[in-house]
């Protein structure tokens, strides 16, 4: 089970794709440059580097293990030849630097090829060492370790557009760090009540605005979003804007709050909208409208009548992520049975696709799937009762500019590419 993928993230150009897993490892894939000689090998992703990011730890004080599972990876914008990323488990965030080495010096005067000191009597002339090409070596080194900043479990990290700071959020607090400083952080949100018995709401996700370095959003387990402005005050407990949709009284049940809990929030690339995922829907919010989302899409409404079973087997607590495409016209999220869903905001069409070995041969076209809820059943439909709830697609990522998506299905990574700029069918 250490191979279960726990996070997926493209870098800013889409050239690199990082995955983190339950065993604390990070695997980075690199896209092969498209070559005219092999037109079918257009931009496939191959393993570029693998390294152990986090190790399991034991908290002796609480008698509890600290999991090495990588919760989130975020890439820093590239500023020189090296790539950098932040990876985090429940407690500690690490900054990793990824560099390439493809040359090595040869022809030292004092050392031989293996590095042993030469017998000086054999040296009769001096030479200048020369750089010679070697097989590409990718080196990953930990540059910073941001530890002891969180009492509770870190669920999100987000790099600021200023490229100097980033934030990390746990269940009750959000901290602001400077990338170069590891021994202190600033607490910018704290929702821990004075008396823990009064705790009724936790932070579930947070993200910096893509363009405004002073703005960030965080979501809660009660389904609300809070947009905060760091210029307003040092401690951003008072939100600038609160986004909340009033409850639909006709759908009210004991599970209403649980299914309204936001599991992921993402700003659109434009910065005008926010995308949220709760248990049954994805919603698009306009930053200027706090009273309700501008768009709501049903991911798997057929589960609404099964909420009690899903509460019993804990599936109702599954945290699905969501993603925008590069142009903010299509949104994507995962579901059960290794299904994932895409919604075209313009055409209002949606599609359900499956990530599985059987249905995905190289260069095969994915066939749309359908879940039938009674009534007419077509040939390849799946009935709600035969859905496999152990096969959940929680983590998905979309290439920043192209129609390439990365889907994590338990311990398998699927990368789907779309050659034609196609519409949904």
């Amino acid at each position, binding site marked *: 089970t250490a191979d279960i993928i726990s996070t997926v993230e493209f870098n800013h150009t889409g050239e690199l794709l990082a995955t983190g897993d339950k065993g604390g490892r990070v695997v980075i894939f690199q896209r092969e440059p498209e070559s005219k000689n092999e037109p079918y090998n257009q931009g496939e992703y191959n393993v570029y580097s693998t390294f152990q990011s986090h190790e399991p730890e034991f908290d002796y004080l609480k008698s509890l293990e*600290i999991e090495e599972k990588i919760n989130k990876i975020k890439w820093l914008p590239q500023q020189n030849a090296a790539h950098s990323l932040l990876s985090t488990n*429940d407690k500690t965030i690490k900054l990793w630097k990824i560099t390439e080495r493809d040359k090595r010096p040869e022809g030292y005067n004092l050392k031989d090829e293996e590095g042993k000191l030469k017998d000086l009597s054999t040296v009769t002339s001096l030479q200048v060492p020369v750089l010679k090409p070697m097989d590409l070596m990718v080196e990953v080194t930990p540059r910073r370790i941001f530890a002891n900043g969180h009492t509770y479990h870190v669920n999100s990290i987000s790099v600021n557009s200023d490229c100097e700071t980033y934030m990390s959020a746990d269940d009750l607090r959000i901290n602001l760090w400077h990338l170069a400083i590891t021994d202190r952080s600033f607490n910018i949100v704290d929702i821990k009540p004075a008396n*823990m018995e009064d705790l009724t709401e936790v932070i579930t996700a947070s993200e910096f605005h893509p363009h405004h370095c002073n703005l960030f959003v965080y979501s809660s387990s009660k389904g609300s979003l809070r947009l905060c402005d760091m210029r307003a005050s040092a401690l951003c407990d008072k939100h600038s804007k609160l986004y909340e949709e009033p409850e639909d009284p006709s759908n009210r049940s004991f599970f209403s*709050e649980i299914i309204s809990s936001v599991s992921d929030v993402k700003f659109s690339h434009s910065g005008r909208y926010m995308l949220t995922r709760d248990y049954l829907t994805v919603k698009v919010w306009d930053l200027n409208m706090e009273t309700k989302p501008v768009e709501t899409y049903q991911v798997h409404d057929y589960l609404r009548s099964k909420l009690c079973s899903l509460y019993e087997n*804990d599936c109702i607590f599954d945290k699905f992520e969501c993603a925008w495409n590069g142009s903010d016209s299509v949104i994507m999220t995962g579901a059960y049975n290794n299904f994932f869903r895409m919604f075209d905001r313009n055409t209002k069409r949606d599609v359900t696709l499956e990530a599985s070995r059987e249905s995905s041969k190289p260069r095969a076209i994915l066939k749309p799937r359908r879940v039938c809820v009674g009534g007419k059943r077509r040939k390849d439909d799946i009935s709600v009762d035969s859905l496999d709830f152990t096969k959940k697609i929680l983590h998905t990522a979309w290439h920043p500019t192209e129609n390439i998506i990365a889907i994590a299905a338990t311990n398998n990574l699927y990368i789907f590419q779309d050659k034609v700029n196609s519409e949904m069918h």
Partner: protein
Amino acid sequence: MFVRGLKRKCFDGEEDIEGTLAGIKAIPSYNLQRQSLLDMSLVKLQLCHMLVEPNLCRSVLIANTVRQIQEEMTQDGTWQMINTQSTGQASLDRLVSTDILCRSSREQAEGKHVPGYSTFNKDFEGDQTQDSSETMSTASSVQAPRNLQSNVWEMENPQENKGNFQKSLDQIFETLENKSPNSVEDLFSEVDNSYYDLDTMLTGMMSNTKMGHCEGLETFSSPSTTTSNSNCKSDLNELDHIVEILVES
């Protein structure tokens, strides 16, 4: 507030049919469903102490669900009714233990008093060394119309222990943020040793507690619900033991 007919939709599809067919049974069966949901939620909260730190979001959501059910039961007046039934007693007793066991995720506000319900602190003050659940059972049968729940939170001595327990946890949380090597010994000295016993007990208990009784919720009129009560009773005995440890320390 909410129409019963609508409420039934919150449970899985089949119940709708059974509900309409069993016309006269409709109201008690809804209560049975709600009770099963409460039972299930309490079991989930009890399982929150594992080797890895429990998921706080999940615990808070479950605790909120428990609170919602209790609020509704209080407003319905069924909370009083249930005091006299055996199923109710079992769940309330477990409610006590759950509070002690999972303090950090519990949402109950002690300040909340439901009008019309009185407290009986003084009945419990002298019972420090007794098993608190036994005391609860006695009290509930004697004082049927009272709101057992709000009284539970006011039990003096177990309350202090709970307070200390929570205080220890909170201190641990606070101090961890300013972790320095010098204070490690101080941290250890403040920790209540009963906490570690609790962990061992719960780890052992986890393997015994079955989630199977929740299947009763799917077909609420089936006999499986009576089986759930006996499972609850055996859980209850183990929880009694745990409560004993806490109270005595």
